[in-house]
């Protein structure tokens, strides 16, 4: 009898081994653990056995039943694993296919650069001051130490309106006078951003409208060395902590002394490349100490007050940073350009 039981176990286990799916598993359960299974029959005939064999055969039969039941659970779990694996395999994607297009949109590159300039200067205490674009000759030139027929006016080609004495500002500097007249005799630290206009041929290198950001600081204790320090800090934050800058003597009628600021080329690190035209330097800023006549025109006493002013072109900076060789891209607003920033 025990031998028969062993055979039943072996047969059942070897058949379980061949089961491949859930349905086969159910069939196997009915066949080997069901009421009509050989094992059940053995158990049901237990009473017919001699009394002394009954406990041993019974114990063995129950042992086999437990073994088959746990083998069934194990097999069932294994089959589920296989099924999951198979279905996951079937769901495999081609991850190289393109994604669903999102509606991506950006700020105009000029705005992006303007914001970076605002942020750096705001942290130094410079606040934005709005100033108009259609200006009077007085604010754009005369009050900035450029009387009519002054040679320095040659530096700007001006758009005049049909109203005599009214023009499109050629720089943000008229805002200096507006700010001074509003705040005198308080100290000033403002930036004057905005669009300026020059009568130019529209080419890859020259535009009729362009943004400028002008900085103005006025107080009782402001020196040329402060101007150098402020702009060197600005250049390091704008172009990189290790960027060196240099001050070159230059001329603007509304500042004296005046300077142009070059920074070491951030593309080649100063070793010479096409962006800096092999010179290692990039011209980025014009600046100087506010001219005494301008201070006076703004309502400050040049014997008591000093100040500095500087101007920077956001489009030029953007061009340098991204190697934009044609300035006309900015207001052309071709999506193929805008989408790159």
């Amino acid at each position: 009898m025990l031998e028969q039981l062993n055979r039943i176990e072996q047969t059942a286990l070897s058949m379980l081994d061949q089961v491949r799916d859930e349905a086969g598993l159910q069939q196997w359960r009915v066949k080997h653990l069901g009421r009509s299974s050989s094992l059940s029959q053995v158990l049901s005939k237990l009473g017919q056995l001699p009394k002394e064999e009954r406990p041993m055969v019974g114990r063995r039969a129950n042992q086999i039943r437990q073994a088959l039941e746990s083998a069934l659970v194990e097999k069932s779990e294994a089959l589920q694993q296989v099924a999951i694996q198979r279905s996951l395999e079937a769901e495999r994607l081609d991850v190289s296919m393109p994604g669903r297009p999102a509606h991506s949109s950006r700020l105009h590159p000029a705005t992006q650069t303007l914001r970076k300039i605002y942020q750096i200067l705001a942290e130094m205490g410079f606040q934005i001051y709005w100033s108009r674009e259609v200006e009077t000759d007085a604010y754009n030139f005369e009050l900035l130490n450029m009387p009519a027929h002054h040679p320095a006016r040659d530096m700007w080609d001006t758009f005049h309106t049909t109203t005599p004495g009214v023009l499109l500002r050629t720089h943000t500097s008229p805002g200096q006078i507006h700010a001074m007249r509003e705040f005198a005799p308080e100290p000033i630290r403002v930036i004057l951003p905005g669009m300026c206009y020059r009568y130019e041929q529209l080419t890859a290198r020259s535009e009729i409208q362009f943004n400028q950001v002008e900085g103005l600081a006025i107080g009782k204790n402001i020196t040329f060395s402060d101007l150098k320090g402020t702009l060197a800090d600005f250049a390091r934050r704008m172009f990189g902590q290790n960027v060196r800058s240099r001050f070159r003597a230059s001329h603007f009628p509304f500042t004296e002394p005046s300077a142009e600021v070059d920074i070491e080329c951030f593309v080649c690190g100063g070793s010479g490349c096409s962006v800096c035209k092999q010179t290692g330097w990039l011209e980025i800023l014009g600046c100087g100490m506010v001219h005494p006549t301008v201070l006076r025109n703004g309502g400050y006493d040049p014997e008591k007050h000093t100040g500095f002013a500087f101007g920077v072109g956001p489009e030029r900076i953007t061009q340098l940073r991204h190697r934009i060789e044609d300035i006309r891209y900015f207001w052309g607003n071709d999506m193929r350009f805008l989408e790159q920033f």
Partner: protein
Amino acid sequence: MRVPVSWLKEFIDIHLPLEELAHRLTMAGMEVEEICLVGLPMPPGEKHEFKITGLSWDPDKIVVGAIHEVMPHPNADRLVLCRLDDGEREHIVLTGAPNLFAYKGQGPLPQPLKVAYAREGARVYDGHEAEQKLMTIKRTKIRGVESSSMACSEKELGISSDHEGIIILDDDAPVGVALAEYMGDAVFDIAITPNIARNANILGIAREIAALTGQELRPLNLDILAEGPSIAGQISVDIQCPELNPRFLLGLVRDVTIRPSPYWVQHRLRLAGMRPINNIVDATNYVMWEIGQPLHAFDYDVLLERAGDGPLKIITRTAHPNERLTTLDGEERELDDFTVLVCDTAGSLSIAGVMGGVESEVNEQTRNVLLEGAAWNFINIRRTVAAQRLPSEAAYRFSRGVHPAQAERGVRRALELMRQWSGGTVDRDLVDNYPCPPEDPIVDITAGDVQRLLGITLTLEEITDILTPLGFTCVREGETLRIQTPDHRLDIGEGIVGKADLLEEIARIYGYDQIPETRLADELPPQRDNPLWDGEERLRDILVKLGLQEVITYRLTSPEREARLLPPDTPHEDLIYTRLENPPTAERTVMRRSLLGSVLEIIERNARLRERLALFEIGPIYLPQEGELLPDEPTRMVIVLTGLRYLPMWDHQSSEVLDFYDLKGIIEALLGELHLDGAQYEPTEHLTFHPGKTAQVRMGKRVLGIFGEVHPQVHEQYDFPDTPVLAAEFDVETLLTLVPDRHDMRPVPIFPPVLEDLAIVVDEALPAARVVEVIQKAGGKMIADARLFDMYRGEQIGSGKKSLAYSLTYQAPDRTLTDKEVARIRGRIIQRLERELGAKLRS
């Protein structure tokens, strides 16, 4: 301005390498834009701070040669053979240079001709090419005669574009010496800003180098060998407007021979960018370049003839009404009443300081030369140059101010050069009328002034050492330096302005790079709030987040371009624009009155590039105001959408296009973020928009903006895609002033809501917003949300009707609502919908 370095060396010893010299000048405000090599070797190294152009002459291959005989070519009339000594041996050199033909067949020349000789293998420019193109001299046979070297033209050596003949050097040129050593040079092209116009000459630049390097400046030699009679009494001068003509000088050279100037003079003028004419005209140009004083030479005999029997009298005056003068360029010019003329008793001779007249100009027959040196009011010269459109080197200098003291220096220098170059005799003395000598300012400076403006500490001795080489005279009085401006500059002001002028000079020469970098230590001004600016930037951020691309457009447009915003033939009043006097093109004549017009043009531009466009711009428009000089510049915000609602995907294609409700969704989201609750959307009419698809947005009594679909007839006037174009225009200030400073948070409910749908049938004309209004009113606080989720029109409902289905959210803050409560509220809502709107419940 082109500055040959060799010319500078007439006035100062220069020991610095070329690039270092250029660097020092550039840092001190005389920006060297280009270094053009004329024979000198390329400075060593890979990296150059400056743009370097030009040609280096190989010292072994390009040397001074001497032609001893010019012989005919056996087979060609237009070629000659030269017997040439290059210091090592004799060569036969073949050339077609016309300036040698005069010597052809004369046998050995008594005085050999010194030339620039290039041996086989030398690199020179090809004289026959229009551009500067390098070539290597090779052995070749021309018409049966072998040739392996050549005598060069200026063009071949990169000196000028002259290829008319070969260079004939001065007789003392040393044979066999490398040409680069004999006459190699470099020319600096220097940008002259208006404040340093005094340096638009060789002496001025040399003076700056003296101050920058500590080398001594050699003074200009103003001695004249005057062997003629005294000019005194021969000519009188009458200055009628002294403020326009502060000084007028005359000198006389007799018995000149008009001929080409010596080669070294012509060479120098060419390097400087001027065209040599003859010895007399060259002398005036040479002096102008050398010290900055423009001069004018008259044919003296023409003037005598015009004077007839009377004494010669020169008059300077402003032009008479309708007066005309034919200038040197052959043009008859109408003169303005401010134009100053140099005249004699017979009439006008020249436009003062700008251009001579044709009648009295020096020509090949001239024997006696009257030389004018004068000072003119620079502003008046500028006006004249602008009115006559007559820019010239003389006018360039006079229009930026030339000190009257320079006039005498110029006349003396030029008279002596004319004497040397023409063989003439100079009359003793000068005629000198000097009614308005300028006062050269005296400015006081202290060490404290330097500290206050520049932030550096200098002693009075250091300041003196900086300013003296520039020509200033510094006298110490206690702790003050009393500084006298030299009589060659007009750019130093009086008082506090003069102080700033001098501090700039001190900073420049001391070196900007020597001044330390410090941080602002001054008091911070009061910090001010800037709500409009902050608000504008916030709008940009929200719009970008909502999927709109920012554009920035041209603010110049034309009325015709903006007229496209209205359907064709719309009668409209003429709009007043800020109009340009000098528009850049016919398409940009005015400042825009509409931001929408600008953005629509960007849609046009990109229409074929993208299937979906969603753009915005925030920027000003310009509205002239009655009685105001300047226009208002309000800021507007424009949004434009067009194209596909969903971008095509490989597993999904949709032809749905953006419509009114896409734009409205964006506006709702924008107003939501700004916490502008309670905006009303009302149908409105506007010529640019579709009459049935346009709304205005109102908050209380304030209209924020308008949006809708662009009118089909307007659409047609643009090169748009076929999809509807949706546009919105808002006034930014109105929008931002309504944005609340703060808002209260609404508690998040902790009890579950009850959700229920409600569908009703109403008249087609009933605005959906009315339904929500009634639901809210009837439901009171318990209605947390009423969202339209479906709309249906069709037979089942009947014509003139529509079905609206709402998803209602019932919510109490303090409990879970019971079914009974919800049923009661619902009943109330239905009752009021039926009563107030004639709605019918749809089952």
